[in-house]
């Protein structure tokens, strides 16, 4: 296949064929299931087939050109870049855990939905078009050139590394979990299988390979998410188009919550009953808004952190370096959000349907309010109990399953609802393939963001500016393998729990990168010293606050558990880092000499879409 101009023109045809091929594969699997092929083998075939396709795309996209490796040759069309960004963005956690989060957290949790979509408005208005015009290869490349100097460049790489690495171990962890469940291998082996799949997709072709595999992965993951949602909705009487028609179901959930009562279990009770770690029960309302100023602030502060963090995450910003023009970059952000919206708006619907399927005694799938011995004899309950994903504790000893006596892991909402609603197993196989696609695509983007920053900004720009193309690409690939292996190594020891939440990546990025990026374009007076001081003050103050507020760190470091300042807990520490970054950056900039005429002209040129890029095609 020719991957030059002809390939770009034929993209709709190529991915159309690919989607058709995938549909045929689903049909073949459905027939195989009817013919008696075991559920386990169907799961294996789904994951193996899709991963092989991605690897093939990765191999076909191999390159020996620097701009193809770093920015896919800047020829990715708007809509396709939107799909690739959506896959880059939606992680294994989005795919598997988002609906579960809504299931347990209801309205309060959905601050994440607003945060993870609203951030794109900031990306489109403040960042993407200008960074595209600038012509940088990486995010630190912009900071290093705009402010001038190796120190500020290194500071930006430092923040990028902390934020992206926090994120990538969680993704490799998710890849391993899904690979191990689908292929029936141990978790540790699953992690390495996941890593090898990720590296095959990215190593030979860099950004170009990642782009075309991400588009393929988006198609798989969105099909795998939407088919079950629509199917389940029709099956449990939610209506043909759940997004518009679940009003009655949401109201019904409110009634059922009243009927069963929302009871909080005491920690001692749960411990005595032996509830496995990580399993949750419903104790809050689905659609109700919690009362009080603090509840409102908690919602808003979480949304702010996720939005500002989104606009600072390097692996997302670098996707907009690959479009052919500035205006394509702007449109591409809009398409990205459209493709993300398709999944994010479906997650609450899936959570509603799943909750109703389990809670409504009028539905054949309902289990709450039924006798515990009956529930325990249901096939899916047995299967998921064996792997400690669901759990029943009869606290009041009446033999009837109450709402607060049913525990499950959030992932189960996505992974098991097809089974609960009685869909054929082929759908569950499809869901595994979708989860794998989501985790792999994000891990790819992150590993590439880190290794590109190290190879371009640290190695080429600082250590060896005379390196030739072959040497630069070799270094880039070696670093890619090292970063991937380091992530997998940490993931395989299950050390991810000490790295905490995925939300931390957003807080780290917003603490150190948001204002240096925004002010780099929007404030000519911002100086190098200001940027260095701001980045370091932001990331350090944010991190110190995190150690102070997060009990696992605060006990050994600060000698006790601290009450969050103004409700700013460990999910929201960017609210400390980012304002400090802003203040320090502005004050230091005003105290130092204003940038020279050349820098001011650079900023002027960045602001208009036409004319030469600041950095050349090959740099």
């Amino acid at each position: 296949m020719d991957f030059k101009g002809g390939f770009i023109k034929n993209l709709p045809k190529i991915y159309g064929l690919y989607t058709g091929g995938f549909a045929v594969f689903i049909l073949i699997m459905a027939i195989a299931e009817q013919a008696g092929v075991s559920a386990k083998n169907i799961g294996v075939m789904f994951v193996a087939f899709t991963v092989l396709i991605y690897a093939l795309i990765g191999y076909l996209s191999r390159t020996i050109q620097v701009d193809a490796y770093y920015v896919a040759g800047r020829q990715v069309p708007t809509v396709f870049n939107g799909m690739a960004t959506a896959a880059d963005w939606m992680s294994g956690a989005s795919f598997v855990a988002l609906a579960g989060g809504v299931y347990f957290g209801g309205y309060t949790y959905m601050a994440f939905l607003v945060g993870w979509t609203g951030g794109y408005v900031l990306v489109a208005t403040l960042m993407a078009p200008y960074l595209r015009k600038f012509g940088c290869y990486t995010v630190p490349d912009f900071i290093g050139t705009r402010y001038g100097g190796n120190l500020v460049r290194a500071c930006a790489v430092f923040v990028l590394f902390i934020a992206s690495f926090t994120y990538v171990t969680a993704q490799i962890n998710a890849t391993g979990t899904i690979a191990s469940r689908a292929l029936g291998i141990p978790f540790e082996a699953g992690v390495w299988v996941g890593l090898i799949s990720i590296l095959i997709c990215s190593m030979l072709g860099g950004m170009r390979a990642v782009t075309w595999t991400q588009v393929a992965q988006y198609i798989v993951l969105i099909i795998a998410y939407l088919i079950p949602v629509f199917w389940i909705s029709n099956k449990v009487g939610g209506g043909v188009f759940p997004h518009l028609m679940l009003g009655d179901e949401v109201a019904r959930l409110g009634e059922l919550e009243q009927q069963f009562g929302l009871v909080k279990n005491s920690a001692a009770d749960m411990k005595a009953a032996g509830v496995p770690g990580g399993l949750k029960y419903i104790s809050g309302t689905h659609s109700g808004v919690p009362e009080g100023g603090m509840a409102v602030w908690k919602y808003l502060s979480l949304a702010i952190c996720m939005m500002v963090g989104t606009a600072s995450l390097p692996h997302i910003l670098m996707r907009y370096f690959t479009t052919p023009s500035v205006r394509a970059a702007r449109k591409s952000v809009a398409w990205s959000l459209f493709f993300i919206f398709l999944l994010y708006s479906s997650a609450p619907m899936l959570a509603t349907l799943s909750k109703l399927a389990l809670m409504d005694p009028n539905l054949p799938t309902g289990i709450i309010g039924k006798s515990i011995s009956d529930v325990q004899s249901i096939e899916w309950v047995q299967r998921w109990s064996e792997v400690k994903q669901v759990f029943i504790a009869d606290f009041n000893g009446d033999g009837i399953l109450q709402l607060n006596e049913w525990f499950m892991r959030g992932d189960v909402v996505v992974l098991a609802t097809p089974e609960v609603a009685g869909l054929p197993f082929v759908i569950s196989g499809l869901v595994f393939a979708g989860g794998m696609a989501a985790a792999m695509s994000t891990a790819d983007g992150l590993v590439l963001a880190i290794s590109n920053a190290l190879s371009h900004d640290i190695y080429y720009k600082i250590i060896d500016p005379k390196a030739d193309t072959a040497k630069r690409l070799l270094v880039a690939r070696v670093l890619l393998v090292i970063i991937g292996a380091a992530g997998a190594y940490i993931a395989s020891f299950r050390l991810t729990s000490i790295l905490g939440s995925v939300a931390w990546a957003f807080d780290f990025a917003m603490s150190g990168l948001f204002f240096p990026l925004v002010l780099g374009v929007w404030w000519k007076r911002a100086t190098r010293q200001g940027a260095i001081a701001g980045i370091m003050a932001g990331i350090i103050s944010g991190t110190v606050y995190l150690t102070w507020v997060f009990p696992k760190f605060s006990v050994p470091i600060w000698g006790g558990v601290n009450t969050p300042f103004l409700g700013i807990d460990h999910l929201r520490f960017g609210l400390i880092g980012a304002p400090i970054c802003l203040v320090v950056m502005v004050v230091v900039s005003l105290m130092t000499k204003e940038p020279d005429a050349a820098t001011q002209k650079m900023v002027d040129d960045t602001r208009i879409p036409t004319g030469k890029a600041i950095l050349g095609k090959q740099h």
Partner: protein
Amino acid sequence: MSNKDAYWAKTKNHMIVTLVLWAFFSLVIFMFGTELNTMSFLGYPLAYYMTAQGSLLAFVVMLFWTANKQEKIDEEHGFSEREED
């Protein structure tokens, strides 16, 4: 005022308008979650609807609108890129 300055002034205003809309759909409406939830839309309580779908949809529409508007500003000032996407 040079053409470039005029262009940037317009772009800046456009940015501010977009961010005001953004703040409205992401922050302002959720300050009144309890009140909004007493109203309903498509049968959903309104605050629930906005956080599950409405605001998300508003962001998508806003981004297409804002990109088109900015393209018009580009054209007015002769900064429109010729090559096509």
